[in-house]
């Protein structure tokens, strides 16, 4: 059973069916922190993609692994820390490209690595590290002022 602790921590088993619990957990806290619906959706998507990647690639779809999602916030900073065991992951080995750029370059629509693109595109800071035997992904998003543009140029 998923375990939710007081200090905004959720632990799930590495089963894709648990993704909805992760989304629900992150959504509630992001909205409480002050993000609007679209910014909350971006955070949810990024965390979902990190968890999905860990289940598929680090745990190879074995449902007995553990994934911990921890939320921390300070001033205008909202941090999501996802930790999991399994096969180490080095994001530098992955070439992240926008689906549109790929389509323009090749004339073909190919899936793959879209999750990584979403993670980097929708969060302000992404940090993959290894602590002991664990993979730790730190995702950071800042609250933006109302007059600040939320949209960056993804097609550049």
């Amino acid at each position, binding site marked *: 059973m998923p375990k939710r602790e007081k200090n905004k921590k959720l632990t799930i088993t590495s089963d894709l069916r648990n993704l909805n619990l992760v*989304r629900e957990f992150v959504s509630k806290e992001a909205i409480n922190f002050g993000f609007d619906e679209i910014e909350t*959706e*971006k955070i949810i*998507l990024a965390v979902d993609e990190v968890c999905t990647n860990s289940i598929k690639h680090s745990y190879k779809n074995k449902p007995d692994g553990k994934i911990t999602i921890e939320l921390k916030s300070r001033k205008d900073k909202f941090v999501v820390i996802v930790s999991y065991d399994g096969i180490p992951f080095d994001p530098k080995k992955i070439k992240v490209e926008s*689906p549109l750029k790929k389509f323009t370059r090749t004339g073909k629509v190919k899936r793959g690595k879209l999750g990584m693109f979403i993670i980097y*595109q929708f969060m302000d800071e992404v940090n993959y590290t290894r602590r002991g035997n664990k993979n730790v992904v730190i995702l950071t998003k800042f609250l933006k002022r109302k007059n600040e543009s939320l949209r960056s140029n993804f097609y550049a």
Partner: protein
Amino acid sequence: MGKEMKEKNFDLKIEERGDVKILKMKGYLDAYTSLQFEEKMKELVESGNYKIVVNMKNLSYISSAGFGVFMAFVDEVRKNGGDIKFCCLPEKIDEIFELLGFKHIFEVLNDENKAIESFEKLGVKNAKKRKK
């Protein structure tokens, strides 16, 4: 009556108008629910259905795995004179389509009828081409 695929958190209803299949989605299309959806898409495309309208009016969420299913089949349906077109996107999903650049890869319409009719027009054009 259309065929149905039901799963916790995600429902798919398939209707048809002429040779256009209309996929009505409801709920959450994520890495889990997209596994069964991909099977359904495969079945559709392999049995020669190349004109597909995806009505997202009641879809609450889509992740990369969901997008991936459409990305996996769109080249094949286009090669066969069809397409995968989207309609009735909720605001949140519309924004995600925009931000990921999918509006430049896929055709996105506001209205289901318009999406279906755009295929009918395409059919007339192709028929004229064949006559020539």
